[in-house]
């Protein structure tokens, strides 16, 4: 199940990044990722309803700036931190909706919290890179980590 979920996360992330922002993601192994990351952002969405859990996405400023630029038409080197933060929040929102449908189908109803931006991204980066359930990606050669923690409500999943 976990293996399937990782494949779904990779597939959804690849498709969403391409469709949303013309960016290309490739699966990566933890040893392809840097041990530390500077100028990173962490977005997290809480999930309730047919399952409880959260989706966490960590990415460097470079990815978030390119994401913003490709969506809005701004120049990547002129993207503000505020815009980059909003971009990773919205990316996480779209990823979460798509992943839940791929994993649980279209019958269950989920309630998603608005994306939260977490402090201390370097701490999250270290923890996520070493989490066996996290999915590592290289997005246009820049690292991104996605972790979906999901516990299905047994009553609704039945």
């Amino acid at each position, binding site marked *: 199940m976990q293996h399937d979920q990782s494949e779904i996360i990779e597939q959804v992330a690849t498709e969403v990044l391409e469709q949303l922002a013309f960016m290309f993601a490739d699966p990566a192994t933890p040893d392809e990722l840097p041990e530390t990351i500077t100028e990173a952002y962490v977005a997290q969405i809480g999930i309730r309803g047919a399952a409880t859990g959260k989706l966490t996405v960590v990415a460097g400023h470079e990815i978030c700036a390119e994401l913003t630029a490709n*969506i809005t038409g701004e120049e990547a080197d002129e993207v503000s931190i505020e815009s980059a933060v*909003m971009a990773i929040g919205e990316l996480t929102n779209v990823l979460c*909706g798509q992943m839940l449908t791929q994993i649980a189908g279209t*019958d*269950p109803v989920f309630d998603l919290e*608005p994306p939260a931006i977490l402090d201390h991204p370097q701490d999250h980066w270290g923890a996520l890179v070493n989490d066996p359930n996290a999915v590592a990606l290289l997005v246009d050669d820049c690292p991104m980590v996605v972790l979906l923690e999901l516990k299905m409500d047994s009553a609704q999943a039945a």
Partner: protein
Amino acid sequence: MSLRILIVDDSPIIRSVIEKNIKLAELPVTECMHAGNGQEALNQLDGEWVDLALVDINMPVMNGVELIEKMKQDDLLKTIPVIVASTEGSQTRIDALKELGIAGYLRKPFTPEQFKEQITQVLELNDAA
């Protein structure tokens, strides 16, 4: 024909994407109004007419479902067509939105072609618009 569209989404980036899609689709839109949540949308609609509202679901303060419910309770606002643009993938919830009377549904991320097709269909514009 000149149209006024209200875009309701808590993400300024998504509002910008939707406005870009409107331009790409070459729709006869003269004005795009923006609101960051359902309450802001209701404030905008108090005294302002729009031909279409594009509404997200997951928003702080007042979400899209609450906004649509309030619009449908108002004799004037209930005539404004609403297209929901959301990450929502639950058919159960989409069916509930249709029962509320939404005119269309776009799932994020959507392509400019899907966007144009949906708007054209809801506003009954011809493809040349």
